[in-house]
């Protein structure tokens, strides 16, 4: 497995307070890594350390599988980032802002500027001063800037901040397209689960500076799926009957006398009746498990997310 970015025991303390604590993040090539946490969880602080904007109190950052330090400058040529806010020189047009980026990245071709502006749908506002841009337009321009030098990894701190629902959807499509067509790896931070729900392939959940869990999105979904918990006297016979009579296949034996059925969630009465008429003693049947949102809430101590 090739890693694009790993952090080892990454820690940031301000005085006595640990803002980020012993964080081990593993981002694999091709991941769309959703970096999920509530306001103040430490997402931006982590990303700042990764981009060398603040100095870690402890820990290491490993880029593209190549050891540490020294290589950072070279690694930055392969990374595009928006940290916290897409800042631009307000007196300049979008094109001039990108020209500055092109120069500082030491890139050759000027046409790339029009290409990325087209990609994010800002080609029409190319000559407009950024001063007159809305926050949503700045977000897009930030994505354009981050894309200009053909990065392998995009690090985006809450990139859909300030976008309307239509815009969020559009940007999500763009990210998916970039991931698929160009094989770009993403780290996208968010405090909204719903925002990365239809995007992320992997999720890291940070809470109070600690990475609680790092998990494939699918596994997360499985973990947090809802099911009927059926308590019976003979789970093997019960399973057989569910298969035969209700055509069920998506279930697991969760323990002695306990079945988790992921289908027929709204048919608890039918399930009960079918089992009973086939001579199974049903002691209980209940809808259980988490919605993804609830699961996330539970992990982060039940504080409601925005």
């Amino acid at each position, binding site marked *: 497995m090739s890693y694009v970015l790993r952090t080892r025991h990454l820690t940031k303390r301000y005085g006595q307070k640990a803002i980020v604590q012993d964080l081990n993040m593993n981002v694999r090539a091709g991941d769309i890594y959703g970096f999920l946490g509530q306001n103040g969880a430490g997402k931006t602080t982590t990303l*700042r350390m990764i981009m060398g904007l603040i100095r870690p109190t402890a820990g290491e950052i490993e880029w593209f599988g190549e050891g540490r330090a020294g290589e950072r400058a070279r690694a930055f040529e392969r990374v595009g980032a928006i940290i916290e806010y897409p800042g631009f020189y307000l007196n300049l047009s979008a094109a001039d802002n990108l020209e500055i980026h092109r120069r*500082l990245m030491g890139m050759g071709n000027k046409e790339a500027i029009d290409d990325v502006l087209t990609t994010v749908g800002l080609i029409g506002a190319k000559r407009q001063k950024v001063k007159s841009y809305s926050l949503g337009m700045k977000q897009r321009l930030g994505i354009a800037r981050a894309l200009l030098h053909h990065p392998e990894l995009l690090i985006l701190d809450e990139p859909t901040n300030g976008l309307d629902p239509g815009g969020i959807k559009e940007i999500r499509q763009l990210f998916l397209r970039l991931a698929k067509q160009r094989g770009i790896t993403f780290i996208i931070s968010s405090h909204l689960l719903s925002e990365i729900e239809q995007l992320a392939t992997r999720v890291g959940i940070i809470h109070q500076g600690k990475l609680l869990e790092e998990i494939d999105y699918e596994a997360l979904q499985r973990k947090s799926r809802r099911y009927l918990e059926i308590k019976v006297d003979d789970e093997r016979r019960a399973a057989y009957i569910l298969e035969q009579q209700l055509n069920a296949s998506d279930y697991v034996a969760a323990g002695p006398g306990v079945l988790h059925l992921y289908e027929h969630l709204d048919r608890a009465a039918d399930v009960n009746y079918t089992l009973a008429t086939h001579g199974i003693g049903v002691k209980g049947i209940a809808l259980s498990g988490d919605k993804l949102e609830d699961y996330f809430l539970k992990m982060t101590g039940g504080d409601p997310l925005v």
Partner: protein
Amino acid sequence: MFNVFYAELLKLKHSRMFWLVLVGALPANLITLFVMMPKVSMDGARVGVDMMYVFYRQGMMLVMMGPSMFTIMAAYIFAREYQERTINQLFSYPISRIRILAAKLSVVFALIAVTAALSSILALGVGVVQLIKQNAEWNTIWLGIRMNLMVIVLSFGTVPVAAAFGMAGKSVIPAAVVGSFATIVTVIGEIGHGRQSILFPWLTSYGPVRRMAQEIAQAGSNPYEPTAALILTVVFLVSLTYCLFHYVRTDVHSGS
């Protein structure tokens, strides 16, 4: 390195910076116009243009405007990255922060040079005309050019101080306060024409201007020059070291 410098220059496009340059350069040209007005001596004869005097007046105005203008220019170039929240991006380039600092300071140097050039444009024009009319010698013109070159270099001596205020204050305001204070001291110093005044770092650039004066007391070479040069060098090095340290070491939290 050129790319970094060019990028820094490009950042000033459509900014107010060029107004600052003009404000810095205009008064000197106005005073030159005034000095050039035809003069008549007591006995009614017309007096020719004294090029030494023209350059002296031009230089006076330039070094009077310099402390505030150059301070604001330098502070703006550093502070705006925080104000416009571009500092995160700026420090995410595969470019060392030392080179970014160097490019920014070079742009300030260029702006000072342009201001001085524009400020002396009328005086030089007059000089060339006088040269052609054989009313002035090349030597005098050269003294004027050299004075302006010296002013450029000496004015740069306090630029890292302004830069330091700009980056630490993350705003032009603290630097502007320093600049106004320096201007007040400068104006008082210049009016007094005292030889020691050049010991004040923002007034060291008055040194070469003062050398052009003929009618003030103790004109010509100034015994305080070595000390003034030393003080300015120390101020330059100390503030530059601070800038380096601050730029390279400090954690960056944009716009906060």
